[in-house]
């Protein structure tokens, strides 16, 4: 589904990704862990199409197509979803408007009819219940005045509504208390399916207690240094990242 080969990316002259390789197949859940500043968000941003990054080498293919050649909206419509580490507040653009416009854009791409206001509301209400969000959120500006936890829940709500094929979650767990973490995990788990792949970027292993990954990767200084299963996350929790770096440089 997603195939990243030797991906190099930089901002200005600053090299951040230095040869990332990653294969993600439908149905898989991957966790990418790594110290602060190792390039996790950069990888997510490059995959989602944020401006300002220069890919100097390597490729990323999504369902066989050159992902990097597509406009951000085109990626979204084809089923790539990025849950932002820092969702932006957009006062004056209301949540319901965004959800509906986004959903209809995706549906159009899939050859489905646009939903009318009634069908849309019915769908949204279900998903909001799942995310334990009050309906009053719909009439508010996008993320406007939301607490950190509400913003993260709103990202997962959008994901639940859009039903992407490839979900990239950038530190969706950070800043959440244990109850909110459970809600977010429930939302994510509800989307697990054989056709869908999930890539979770996280700092802590605690999210992985709720959403069990098939693979765990360690990204450090712009490279994936090690790949393992869930036990790698537990080991990282105990021993930190340094030993991974040392072993990698020894090799």
């Amino acid at each position, binding site marked *: 589904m997603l195939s990243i080969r030797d991906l190099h990316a930089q901002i200005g002259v600053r090299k951040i990704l230095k040869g990332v390789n990653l294969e993600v197949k439908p149905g898989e859940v991957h966790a990418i862990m790594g110290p602060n500043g190792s390039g996790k968000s950069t990888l997510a941003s490059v995959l*989602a*199409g944020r401006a300002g990054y220069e890919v100097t080498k390597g490729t990323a293919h999504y369902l066989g197509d050159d992902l990097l050649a597509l*406009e951000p909206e085109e990626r979204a419509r084809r089923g790539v979803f990025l849950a932002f580490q820092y969702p932006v507040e957009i006062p*004056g*653009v209301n949540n319901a*408007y*965004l959800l509906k416009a986004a959903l209809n*854009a995706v549906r159009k791409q899939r050859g489905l009819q646009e939903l009318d206001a009634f069908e849309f509301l019915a769908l949204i209400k279900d998903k909001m219940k799942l995310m334990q969000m009050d309906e009053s959120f719909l009439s508010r500006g996008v993320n406007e005045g939301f607490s950190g936890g509400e913003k993260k829940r709103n990202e997962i709500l959008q994901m639940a509504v859009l039903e992407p094929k490839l979900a990239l979650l950038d530190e969706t767990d950070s800043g959440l208390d244990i109850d909110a973490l459970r809600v977010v995990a429930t939302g994510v788990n509800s989307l697990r399916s054989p056709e869908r792949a999930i890539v979770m970027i996280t700092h802590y292993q605690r999210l992985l207690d709720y959403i069990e990954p098939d693979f765990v990767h360690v990204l450090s200084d712009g490279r994936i240094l090690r790949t393992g299963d869930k036990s790698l996350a537990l080991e990282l929790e105990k021993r930190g990242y340094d030993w991974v770096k040392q072993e990698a440089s020894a090799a």
Partner: protein
Amino acid sequence: MSAIASSPATVHYREAFARLQPQLGGTASLRVAAMQRFAELGFPGARDEAWKYTSLRRLESRRFVPAAPTTTSVDVPPAFVAQRLVLANGSAAGPVPAAFGGFTLGTLQTAPEDQLLRTFVGGGTERFAALNAALTIGPLLLSTAAGQRSDDVVQLSLVTTGTGPTLASPRIAVRMAPGSRARLLLDHVDDGAHEHFTNAVLDIELGAGAHLTLYRLQRQGERAFHIERIESRVGENACFVLRDSQLGAALARLDTHVSLDGRAAGTEITGVFLADGSRHLDSHVLVDHRAIETTSLQDYRGIAANKGRGVFNGKAIVHAGAQKSNARQVNRNLLLTPGAEIDTKPDLEIYADDVQCSHGTTTGQLDPEALFYLRSRGLSEPEARSALTRAFAGAVMARVDEPVLARHVHDELDRRLVRLLEGSV
């Protein structure tokens, strides 16, 4: 007498006035004095501070024919509200009813002429208000009775129309008696058939405790020239509210002057303008705080794109003695494409010591982070840009509490933004 500036244009209007005069109502002396004043002031020159960013060279080069009284009916867009009066080139198509939508109506035949043909001293549009007083053909006086309160909106559709380039000089005087309350909607349109010039005057007075909300929609055609002066005097505890939407015309200038004369008088002047294409839209607001505890808010949102140009000049003067006054000014501007320009100048003069004043002005582009966020959810770039642009105008649009009008302005902004953004992407 001062020297008469006799540019070819002023000569043209003097001669046109002389020809038209027999058909104009009212005593000759007021009309002649007004024409004289216009001729003295002439068109603004290149160094005129009040016209620093707005050139009238093109307007001055044209020879518009001042509209004569007529009774032919005109095409107008559908009304926004139930009660609507249509004025063609400033005069009613049929006989003017004695009362309309809670207002008593007065004309040159029935109302004091000095109330209907006033001129105003000062400001960049003094000359045009004088020209209007000379040439207006059906000035209307709308007055309320003391304590009379109405929440219904009364619409006045002002249509500029003619078989050739026409100068229309509509004039509305509003006298709000003490304690009365009303809402008026002024809708400026034209027939689009020619390059017309609308030179409008609103002359408003609010008695003690009166409240007037004036919604203004300027949606004239792509070739129109539009100049307007809103002059408002606000008495004790009275409040004048203007909700402006400046969307049309090739060149438009609105001067709003509010004089807060009585204790605790207040005003709120908010508006949006959209200078797309090669439109030039200029709004000048001046609020004089002349009494204690007076309050004012100016909040304009300007949008410019392509070769569009916006000008906003907001000023508040807190005069000596106007203690405990509060003057706030906000002006935010959005440039949607390179090449667009908005010149803004917030200005505050304070001659009292116990006052609260603030002004803030910003000019910028759409937030790229917000744009990326919306696109990452599948919205096309034009959709995302138009959503953010509407949001930008939203805070001011939310104050337009006449739903049908608000919807119209929203839709119009939408339509124009999508067209614009799709064209430029």
